[in-house]
């Protein structure tokens, strides 16, 4: 039954995906000048015949609705067009960069959960203690701090002043790593390359902390408040009166229910992880999708921008779907 519901929910995302593609398509057409003019702008003098030929090649001579139809048809087949500047298919370019971005997002998620879950639980258990107050204050700082600035401060302290961690990139330039999946940490584990593993993990630390800080702030706050609520509930009191050990009560009885609203909030933060990485990749010279998009914007490489924005939106929709599914597992009372 649950599988059917998940499939239904998956089907419901299809019209949203179509809508996303249509919005992105029309934005592309908002740009002053047509794509061929932009391409020619970089190429120099070209004959009128050549321009006409290119217009035909990119279907720009056809009515707008036909263009939309062709665009959607190509997108369905996984063809997102051709980069004007890098002269390669957009899908290939995105596929090459995506592992770096996902690795960073997962690193940030891991860092934020490793920090926020224990802190959220402890500050609820010891409400109004010094730890609790510090947590609330730092979570306020976390949501008010611009990511790019935090990144720069961390580089100033940990890389420039103390020299503990590297400033830029995913791995030391002098190390050779055989790429299997494109995820450097995973690849170095697969190939048994210890040096590469240490180097890629060291490179991940600062960007992950920077990207994960606002997520950690929000998750710690929400977990704390839902823990406070569950700790006051009747079933927790019952567990205590049965003589269950205090940590058992906290972790088994209270935490499981407190996690339900927390999972929703983590799902909402995926947007921050995806959006934030554009900025963080720029700060740390991380060769991922975000940095490629920012470069594409300056080069006016519209097919690449269009394709990447679509991939970001799809990832966001799928992540939200995954959160919904996880939610039903945690809370059987809720159906999709």
């Amino acid at each position, binding site marked *: 039954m649950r599988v059917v519901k998940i499939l239904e929910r998956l089907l419901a995302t299809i019209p*949203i995906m179509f809508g996303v593609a249509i919005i992105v398509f029309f934005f592309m057409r*908002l740009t002053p000048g047509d794509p061929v003019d932009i391409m020619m702008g970089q190429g120099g003098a070209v004959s009128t015949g050549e321009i006409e030929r290119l217009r035909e090649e990119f279907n720009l001579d056809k009515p707008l609705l036909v263009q939309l139809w062709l665009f959607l048809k190509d997108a369905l087949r996984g063809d997102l067009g051709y980069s004007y500047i890098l002269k390669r298919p957009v899908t290939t370019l995105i596929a090459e960069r995506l592992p770096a971005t996902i690795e960073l997002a997962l690193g940030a998620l891991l860092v934020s959960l490793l920090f926020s879950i224990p802190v959220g639980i402890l500050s609820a258990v010891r409400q109004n203690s010094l730890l609790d107050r510090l947590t609330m204050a730092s979570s306020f700082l976390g949501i008010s701090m*611009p990511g790019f*600035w935090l990144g*720069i401060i961390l580089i100033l302290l940990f890389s420039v002043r103390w020299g503990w961690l590297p400033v830029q990139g995913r791995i030391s330039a002098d190390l050779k790593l055989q790429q299997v999946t494109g995820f450097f940490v995973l690849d170095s584990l697969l190939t048994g390359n210890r040096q590469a593993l240490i180097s890629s993990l060291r490179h991940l630390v600062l960007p992950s902390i920077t990207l994960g800080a606002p997520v950690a702030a929000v998750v710690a706050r929400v977990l*704390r408040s839902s823990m406070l609520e569950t700790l006051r509930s009747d079933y927790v009191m019952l567990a205590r009166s049965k003589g269950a050990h205090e940590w058992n009560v906290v972790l088994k009885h209270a935490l499981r229910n407190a996690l339900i609203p927390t999972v929703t909030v983590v799902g909402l933060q995926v947007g921050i992880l*995806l*959006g934030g990485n554009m900025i963080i990749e720029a700060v740390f010279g991380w060769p991922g999708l975000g940095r490629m998009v920012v470069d594409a*914007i300056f080069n006016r490489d519209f097919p690449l921008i269009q394709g990447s*924005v679509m991939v970001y939106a799809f990832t966001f929709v799928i992540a939200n779907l995954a959160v919904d599914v996880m939610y039903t597992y945690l809370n059987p009372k809720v159906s999709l």
Partner: protein
Amino acid sequence: MEIAPDVRTLLDRQFYLLRIRLSIWWANFVQFLNELRQHPLALGGGIIILVYIFCALFAEQITVQSAFRGNLRMRLQPPAWLEGGSWEFPLGTDAQGRDILTRVIFGARVSLMVGGLTVGISILIGVMLGTLAGYFRGKLDSLISRFADLLLAFPFLIFAIGVMAFLGPGFTNMILALTFKGWVEFFRLVRGEMMAEKSKEYVEAARATGQSHFAIIVREILPNIIHSVFVLGTLRMGYMIITEASLSFLGLGVPPSLPAWGSMVAAGRDYMLVAWWVSTIPGVALLILVLAINLFGEGLRDILDPRLKVEG
């Protein structure tokens, strides 16, 4: 208690009603200020915001140095408290020899204007569409709601960056990019509240007295839900300001000729090894403003609309 005066003409009556309304507003405002005193952090946040607004309004009057023209011989001077610094440039100078304090003060203009305008326009659009959708329902409601759902499929910053990519950098384009999706949250809030309020007794009573839909919406329902809109607006303002700074940091925001905190931080990155203050100080100004807005917003929520509160 004032006894109702002798009302003869229509103008007299309107004038009398206006006076009563004003006195109620004033009483509410005084009560709000009293409640704000119970929330010292929110009060502190409010005072900091006022200081920033003052600086932004009177930037020319309160600064001595130029925010735009520098002196290359004075480039990368450290802040006054460091060795080699002077009180001529209390927070040091940037790579073009411009006074950082002056530029930070001028930068408040961009941040506050972007924050205020984007939230203001988003509220206007969101309240209008939310009212229409929530009050009248029907096809219009499902059309706007579907469109809003579509926009929600984009992460906010990516959407803003995408729009800026297509429109090009610039102050107006930035406002457009941020409001294009910014109204959705206000729309959803107002639509939901409208639907809830519409079935309440006071609305039925207003309808029974023969008031028009417009009068019911503007005079009866909106005053009851506008508090929540203001609370959400304050909480969103900090986020909009951070987003503006992020776009300016990437070079996609306001033109480089305007001093904006995001682009100042970006410009200072090249000198991090020799002059940390160039990118650090504008970031501190940004952090303090956003922190103050968030603290004020949380206090405002506790006072005006405790239902929105999610934290314990």
